[in-house]
């Protein structure tokens, strides 16, 4: 593996919270798969916008409003570039990835799925890519099929053609938020299309850590969140192919999404306004644009390379130090995974583990990670999860390992 090109120390100085100490100990933030921290560039872009340029979007005609609208639409262009979408109006700002996935299920689903129609999911999906489909099961009697997993936490593709046979949609994550597994998105999109299904990609975990190219993938929809890629909370993204978006009924009704409203009905606006009802997350779009520029400035290829290196170090360190006492889920080859690790440690319940790690200011998530079906497959009700990002380095793997040692002292039975 090539050596990391990231200057993590320099990057860390750009994240104000990372110099915060609690009880005199530095913050070891290993919960970025949950939500990421924000660099100065993002915080400042939002403050500056509110201090100097805040105004309504797309509604008023004075210069301040035009300036704000340009900034907002500029963020949309940045997102387009970031995921290499063909057209800028194919990008819809939502409140989070969950809303983006619900939008697809509700609007594309209601327009295209009838009783008995099949949607294929995988056993490693986040609830955000399960529950909206459950709702369609309840509402219109569609059928869900599930791609199972291999022993090392990859998708088991041996029965994929059968599962996809007759399916209308295949919705899957590009990277598991629990296992860290990176799925073969291009291959999965092709398999979906071969079966006549559309391909919906949950990019929440993938997009913040990798170069994303929806055209190279051949995907039909992509959903992801700003808050996991150093951007603000309160905004997410749905990208969809123009023809699909154009053919879908609208989602929420209200201002901005209409062409005309009468007492007896309404007509919808063009893309992207059609799917952006009401006042959008204006300042948040500016922040998202700044986050994308920040990440591009560092380089997504470099970020991925750095995380592979950290992942490799973490796998080696934890297995060397704890052997059979630790079970790390997911692939062992860092080519097939990101730097997100769910693990079981001795018999210590993840919640207790996270409590003990928190004494050393090591922040990991304990729980089901919004992936209960996957937890049942793993045979665990909960796991602890440590997830690394561009601002984490190998030394934090060591701190994590030391903190795990201290848990043994308390629960050493």
């Amino acid at each position, binding site marked *: 593996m090539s050596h990391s090109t990231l200057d993590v120390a320099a990057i860390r100085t750009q994240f104000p919270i990372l110099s915060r100490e609690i009880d005199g100990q530095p913050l070891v933030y290993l919960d970025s798969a949950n939500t990421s921290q924000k660099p100065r560039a993002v915080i400042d872009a939002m403050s500056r916008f509110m201090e100097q340029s805040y105004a309504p979007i*797309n*509604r008023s*005609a004075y*210069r301040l*409003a*035009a300036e704000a609208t*340009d900034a907002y639409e500029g963020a949309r262009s940045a997102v387009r570039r970031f995921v290499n979408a063909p057209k800028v109006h194919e990008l819809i700002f939502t409140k989070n990835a969950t809303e983006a996935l619900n939008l697809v299920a509700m609007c594309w689903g209601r327009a295209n799925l009838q009783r008995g129609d099949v949607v294929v999911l995988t056993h490693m999906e986040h609830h955000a890519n399960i529950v909206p489909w459950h709702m369609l099961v309840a509402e219109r009697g569609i059928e869900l099929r599930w791609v199972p997993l291999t022993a090392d936490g990859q998708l088991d593709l041996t029965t994929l053609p059968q599962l996809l046979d007759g399916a209308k949609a295949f919705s899957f994550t590009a990277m598991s938020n629990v296992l860290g597994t990176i799925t073969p998105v291009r291959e999965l999109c092709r398999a979906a299309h071969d079966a006549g299904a559309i391909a919906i990609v949950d990019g929440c975990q993938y997009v913040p850590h990798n170069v994303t190219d929806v055209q190279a993938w051949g995907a039909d929809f992509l959903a992801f969140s700003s808050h996991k890629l150093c951007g603000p909370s309160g905004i997410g993204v749905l990208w969809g192919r123009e023809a699909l978006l154009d053919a879908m009924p609208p989602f929420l009704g209200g201002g*901005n999404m*209409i*062409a*005309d409203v009468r007492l007896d009905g309404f007509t919808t*606006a063009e893309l992207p*306004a059609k799917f952006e009802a009401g006042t959008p997350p204006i300042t948040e779009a500016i922040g998202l644009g700044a986050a994308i520029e920040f990440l591009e400035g560092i380089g997504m290829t470099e970020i991925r390379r750095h995380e592979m290196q950290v992942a490799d170090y973490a796998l080696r360190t934890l297995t060397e130090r704890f052997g059979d006492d630790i079970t790390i889920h997911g692939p062992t080859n860092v080519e097939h995974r990101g730097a997100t690790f769910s693990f079981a440690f001795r018999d210590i319940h993840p919640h207790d583990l996270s409590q003990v790690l928190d004494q050393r200011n090591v922040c990991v998530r304990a729980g089901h990670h919004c992936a209960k079906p996957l937890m049942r497959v793993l045979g665990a009700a909960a796991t602890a999860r440590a997830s690394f990002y561009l601002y984490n380095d190998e030394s934090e793997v060591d701190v994590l390992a030391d903190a795990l040692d201290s848990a043994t002292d308390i629960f050493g039975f």
Partner: protein
Amino acid sequence: MPGLDDLYREIILDHYRSPRNRGELPPPASHAVGHNPLCGDEIEVYLDVQDGIVTDIKVGGQGCSISQSSASMMSQAVKGKPVAEVRALVHRFKSMMSIEEADEDAPEVKLGDLEALQGVVKFPVRIKCAVLAWNTLTEALSTSDAGGDTTR
């Protein structure tokens, strides 16, 4: 900042005050309605196309001085023209508004009075107003049985 006289040229205000070709055409004239959701402007275009020629055009709707004068000037400019030329003019107008790339190889199309709308480019928010009539025209063209239309 650009001054208001760049925007509100006398000829624009004249077309606004006395719009040309105002009215409707009965079917089978093709018909399209365009909205500017920003400000509520509406343009209706009625189009008679015979043998590839725009034999008649009428314009309805209401809106600001820019959208209405643009519609009025447009109606004058396209009446009697072959559809192919009309499409070229649409393209020429939109590239003047800097929302389509100018086409180097395109045959020279005369803008005439329409040149007065050039100043709108300095007020980006108003570009939509100026272009509304032209988009509506394009829509009316594509719903018409423009058999003679070979430009696409």
